[in-house]
């Protein structure tokens, strides 16, 4: 009997702690505006002030212009793949990377950020995805990626998304 009641006491503590864990977990998730990251809204990218300049640039650039209440392109429309599975894998990957860097590496982050190779590829693919009709007649942009030093769309059209940060 004694052992059983000791065990059930422990179980109650365990359950209470489990409840507390979920409670603080959800609160932290809420406090960190966690749900916003599940959306496609550009505002959520600007939760981090690190993005302030880039976000302001974006607001001043043509892609943020709203048509029928929606911007021509949001951050994720240029910066993430559009295929469902690829998109969520990429989103999870960069989400964890950003959260880690923002929590532990903030002091060593450079003032001005550079796009990674992976990110540059995603952006290039997205440029073509929307503008292929025009790109196809303007230059041979799609068929031949020409090596490391080749031009990308943003090499010339550097301020359509935002001026800084690539």
């Amino acid at each position, binding site marked *: 009997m004694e*052992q059983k009641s*000791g*065990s059930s006491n*422990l*179980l109650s*503590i*365990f359950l209470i*702690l*489990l409840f*507390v*864990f979920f409670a*603080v*977990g959800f*609160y*932290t998730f809420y*406090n*960190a505006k966690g749900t916003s990251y599940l959306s496609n809204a550009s505002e959520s990218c600007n939760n*981090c*002030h*690190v993005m*302030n300049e880039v976000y302001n640039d974006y607001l001043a650039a043509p892609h943020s212009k709203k048509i029928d209440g929606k911007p021509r392109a949001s951050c994720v429309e240029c910066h993430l793949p559009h295929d469902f599975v690829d998109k969520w894998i990429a989103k999870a990957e960069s989400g964890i990377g950003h959260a880690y860097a*923002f*929590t532990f590496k*903030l*002091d060593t*982050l*450079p*003032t*001005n950020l550079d796009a990674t190779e992976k990110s540059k590829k995603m952006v290039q693919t997205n440029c073509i995805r929307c503008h292929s009709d025009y790109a196809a007649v303007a230059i041979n942009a799609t068929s031949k990626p020409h090596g490391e030093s080749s031009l990308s769309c943003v090499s010339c059209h*550097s301020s359509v998304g935002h001026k*800084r940060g*690539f």
Partner: protein
Amino acid sequence: MGKKGVLYFGIIILVILIGGVLWLNNDVSQKQQEGAGGIANTSKKIVELSDDNPTFDEWGKNFPDHLDMYLTVEKQEPIPTEFGGNLAYSKLIRYPQLTILWAGYPFSLDANEERGHFWIQVDQMDTARNNKDFLNAHGFAAFAGQPTACMNCHSGWTPWLLKNVAKNDWVAFNSTKYWTMIKNVPAMNGMKEGSVEHSGPHGGKRMGVTCADCHVPNTMELRLTRPGLINALVKFRGYEPDDTIGVKASREEMRTLVCSQCHVEYYFRPTGGKTKIMGESIAKDSSKKWWNGTQKTYDEFDTWRDGNSPTEIEVDGIELVFPWGEWKKGQPFRIEMFDDYYDKARSVFDKDWAHKITGAPMIKIQHPESELFSGGVHAANGVSCADCHMPYIRKGSKKLTQHNVTSPLQNINAACKTCHTQSEEYLKSQIRDIQNSVAYDLRSAEYSIVSLITDIKNLREALGGLEQYQTDGKADAAKINAELKDVLELHRKSQMRADFVGAENSTGFHNPREASRMLLQAVDMARMGQAKLVEIASANGIKDFKTSNLGFEDIQKFNPGEIHYKVDLNGHKAGDRYYEHDNVNGNPPAKFLEDDKNLNPYNYTYVDKK
């Protein structure tokens, strides 16, 4: 492990996890607050700031992060860059040509690399150029010691002293002896009058540039506090004065103008009248003599001591003036504007000094960053001084303006990459290429001017041996000067150009095209001077006259070494090192000398390999 064991284990894990999540939540909240503006700690007491206490220690109470940045240079190991940095090695050792170019002027005795805004007043107190007794004992007795005009830029106390000691009399302030004015710096922040701290750099007499020099106390708005710049902008450049910020200008302009308070060419213009200033009673104490036996007129020390007290005296007035009369608003600066300005000013100010070897009336250019920058590609694109030298940086999750004002090379990412998207390595190599190119031009100009000086010296001696250039059987300098007039003008103007680029703190980077253009002129003028010497020699029947062409190796023979006492003076023995700070006035890093050796003549296999 039984059921109980599993539960214990689970509880421990949960406690750890909860602790972790709570820490994370706290971290998230803290960073959100910081990002919102940095005023996270609301329990902090805000200090009321005013011009009655301009010390950075006081202002830093409200802005601890900014104070930390500003004070970096105090403790940090000095960082030399190829053509600058804050390691205060002797420029005369690295560039011995300067001892010839500045012959007869105290700069030829002592010129070190700068150490930054924090040290600026310490360095002025220490320099041999501001040590009258040392100058007396080392061949420069003709120099009267620095006036307060020199202190305009070096002390954060300048506005306070101008208002409270000189009673807003700008000419009186400038005309007072430096060592007299410095005695009046008040003891603040709980310091004792005359204590070690009161003589120190933290709010005391050796305090350099400070927050109040550029910011309005209650709003932190940018402002101009130095009359030298305000006068120049209003009189010469069409700005309207403004009671709060100095002149009416946009914030963008102010981000450059606050630097232009000091980073400019200037001169001390005689007013032509007498002015009443503070003197020292030591002038009447016949027992107090300088090393060379002349009467002391002031005590070369930073406090009133041994019964020495302030008196009132009358002296010739001087005023700190920027020679910007020909440089109008909205125009890029051109070196010819200084030629024209100083030519017009000749009746009241004909020279900074007479060159000891050639006799030419010389102008010493100071640090004309504002002038050179004004015509460059960065200025044309609306970039301000602060954009590169005080770039936005991140501290934790706060965004701040870098207040450790330094070379942009120290943080290319923050300084350059805000606009330039190329890699840091690429940007650095572009800067290095520009600076190497201008440094080559500068060395070419300096070497050709030293060659000209050498030739003038030789011809002066030859002419002095001719009867028509003698008075009472001795060479007559005035007669020789008259014969060499055109050549001496070429010496003055070519050296003014080389001096401009040499004194300007960017090795041409602030405007490479203009720097190269004026250095080409300098070489042209120096060589033209040599050609004229040949003509004069020939016209006077001097047959064996030859021109010289000095290079790096010849110039190295002029290396003066570190400064040492030549005589017993003020408690120091002959042979003692002059500077107490070990890293001031020493040898430049050996690598730089190797670089210089390979730069002119241009050894592309070395220079382009780096």
